[in-house]
């Protein structure tokens, strides 16, 4: 242990990506609030650049790729160094990776504002930026595998498995789904047509959620939960089984996003079966998390980080139950295309993903800057604000979804439709207002989070302990 002291690790890169993540988080949420307002008051569609159709994509990409990926790169570089017990192999490459990443995300946001949009969900960037994404992913992969090969710790811990599978899977998903024939520098057409394009896209869309919003977040969970509680993971065997089962099953399930569309029925049915199966490995990690705390549940009160981890893994558990159930044909016929699904996504992103990233940053940032966290009290405030904000947000959208789904299906005794389409939209405006308010609460919570971390790094480093 003694031969590698903390000073040798490259934490500059960890910090660079962490604050990039916080920056894109704030931008993405402001855009989110803007479009949430547009949903009940179209007056905010002031210019083409601010119209809902363009902004929604800036929101999803800004948070998914900007915030999500930056946080993942930050934590991956940290975990990688700690678990291999060597500094990152190519620090200069990592630095270029950071600059390129922020350039691509900034250009991505601008191009989406300008309407350069392939329309494939979560893959909207046009081809030159796609190439940028591939290049920065290769840079990341070189450091991941280089550092792993040179590592000093013989066994790779669970978190590293998840980082490896993310690195491999995202490369395959991103390249296959974005294959396109360019017409100009800013315009291209997908190489796949119609039903095939839909199938490729939702194989990607579903798994990009799997391998960005699940796999690396589990890597954080498996690393930081034991670190911050001092308790070992309950079952190593369960984590092995969960890992391989999750990696195997995830890729079969994309077509549950295409229920009752012209996609061949067999692909839909296979997707339903594997979606149900996927509950098992997902809950494997949930159970592993809960059992790790057995006998130590008092830490929920005494250790502020545990609250984030346990609330986060609980939302992951709810999410991975709700998802497969929504995929069932009968339920899907009712819920699909409504706000129910919007609620579902946001429980995952605002609950699970953000809570785990928050706790990981709270653990990591003070350690890499040799400081104490600025304020545990603010961290607790942050926790409760985002919990209340997220819960209000998602529950509101579930109710809105149930209402609109029911109104779409309602018929009069003579068999005619009871509501015209616009009635089903305007009936949602009260929910949209409540959703906006919940978003504001959540946003305030995030500002507290960002403030807390900025103040932590701005403090003078505590005197080094001899």
């Amino acid at each position, binding site marked *: 242990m003694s031969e590698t002291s903390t000073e040798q690790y490259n934490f500059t890169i960890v910090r660079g990506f962490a604050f990039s993540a916080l920056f894109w988080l704030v931008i993405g949420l402001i855009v989110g609030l803007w479009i949430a307002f547009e949903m009940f008051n*179209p007056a905010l569609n002031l210019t083409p650049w601010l119209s809902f159709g363009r902004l929604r994509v800036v929101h999803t990409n800004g948070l998914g790729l900007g915030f999500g990926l930056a946080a993942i790169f930050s934590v991956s570089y940290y975990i990688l160094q700690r678990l291999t017990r060597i500094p990152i192999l190519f620090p200069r490459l990592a630095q270029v990776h950071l600059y390129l990443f922020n350039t691509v995300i900034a250009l991505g946001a601008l191009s989406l504002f300008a309407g350069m949009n392939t329309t494939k969900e979560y893959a909207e960037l046009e081809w030159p930026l796609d190439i940028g994404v591939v290049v920065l992913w290769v840079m990341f992969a070189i450091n991941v595998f280089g550092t792993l090969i040179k590592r000093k710790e013989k066994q790779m811990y669970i978190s590293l498995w998840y980082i490896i599978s993310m690195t491999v899977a995202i490369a395959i998903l991103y390249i296959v789904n974005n294959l396109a024939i360019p017409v100009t520098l800013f315009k291209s057409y997908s190489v796949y047509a119609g039903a*095939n394009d839909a199938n490729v896209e939702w194989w990607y869309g579903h798994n990009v959620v799997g391998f960005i919003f699940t796999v690396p977040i589990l890597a954080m969970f498996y690393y930081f939960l034991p670190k911050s509680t001092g308790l070992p993971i309950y079952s190593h065997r369960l984590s092995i089984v969960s890992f391989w089962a999750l990696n195997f099953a*995830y890729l079969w399930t994309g077509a549950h996003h295409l229920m009752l569309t012209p996609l061949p029925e067999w692909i839909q049915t296979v997707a339903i079966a594997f979606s149900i199966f996927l509950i098992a490995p997902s809950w494997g990690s949930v159970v592993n998390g809960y059992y790790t705390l057995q006998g130590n549940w008092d830490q929920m009160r005494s250790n502020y980080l545990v609250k984030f981890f346990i609330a986060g893994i609980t939302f992951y558990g709810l999410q991975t139950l709700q998802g497969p159930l929504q995929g069932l044909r009968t339920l899907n016929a009712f819920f699909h295309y409504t706000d129910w699904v919007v609620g579902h996504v946001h429980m995952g992103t605002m609950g699970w993903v953000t809570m785990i990233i928050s706790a990981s940053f709270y653990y990591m940032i003070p350690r890499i800057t040799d400081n104490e966290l600025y304020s545990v009290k603010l961290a607790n405030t942050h926790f409760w604000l985002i919990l209340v904000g997220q819960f209000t947000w998602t529950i509101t959208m579930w109710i809105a979804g149930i209402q609109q789904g029911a109104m779409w299906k309602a018929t009069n005794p003579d068999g005619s439709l009871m509501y015209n389409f616009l009635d089903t939209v305007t009936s949602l405006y009260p929910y949209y207002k409540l959703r906006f308010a919940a978003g504001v609460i959540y946003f305030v919570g995030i500002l507290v989070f960002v403030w807390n971390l900025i103040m932590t790094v701005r403090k003078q480093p505590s005197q080094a302990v001899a």
Partner: protein
Amino acid sequence: MGITSKPVVFAVLAAVVILIGTTVTVFIPLFMPSTQPVSAYIKPYTAVEQEGRDIYMREGCNNCHTQTVRPLRTEVLRYGEYSKPEEFAYDRPFLWGSRRTGPDLNRVGGKYPDSWHYKHLDSPQSMFEKSNMPPYGWLAKNRLDTQYSFKKTSTLGYGYSENDVQQQIAQYRGTVTDERYPSKESRNNVTPTELRKEITEMDALIAYLQKLGRDVKKMEATK
């Protein structure tokens, strides 16, 4: 444990595991003609319709409007015949969407006259006071850029010659600028004087909307 100390072997194994489901549910269907059947009744988009489709994509219309009618009773009642796979043979990319903030558009072609679309796109709220759709009046103030129209249709493999494309554009310009064009008044109301003899982005978008679901009606009629 063997593989947890061999990162490269571990990565290869992970890739294999990931590619199994991918191959069965995504790669193999790509080579099965039944995944995306074709029909002689379904025609590719004209150059102007394709330009309209590109504007639909640019503005992210797909973020609020779906283009798949599901085989459900109330859905067929609301929108019309459910979507058939053949209809999408020329759709690169597909535009089925995932959230129906506005109504489905797969059967909107021919449902309303062009004049309805000019008024509605210019100001949805003038027709439906409480609608939350953004206004798109500015599309009528942009001249349609057709410099890449031929390159686009040839990239998409529609089989038009450069001459065909010029003819399609001239023909549509003729239609919308004709004195007897039934939607002339609504078009003039939203189009600035200097663009009234040209094709605007709004003209092209409407051409695209009117194409949606048009050919499938002929296909269904023969069944």
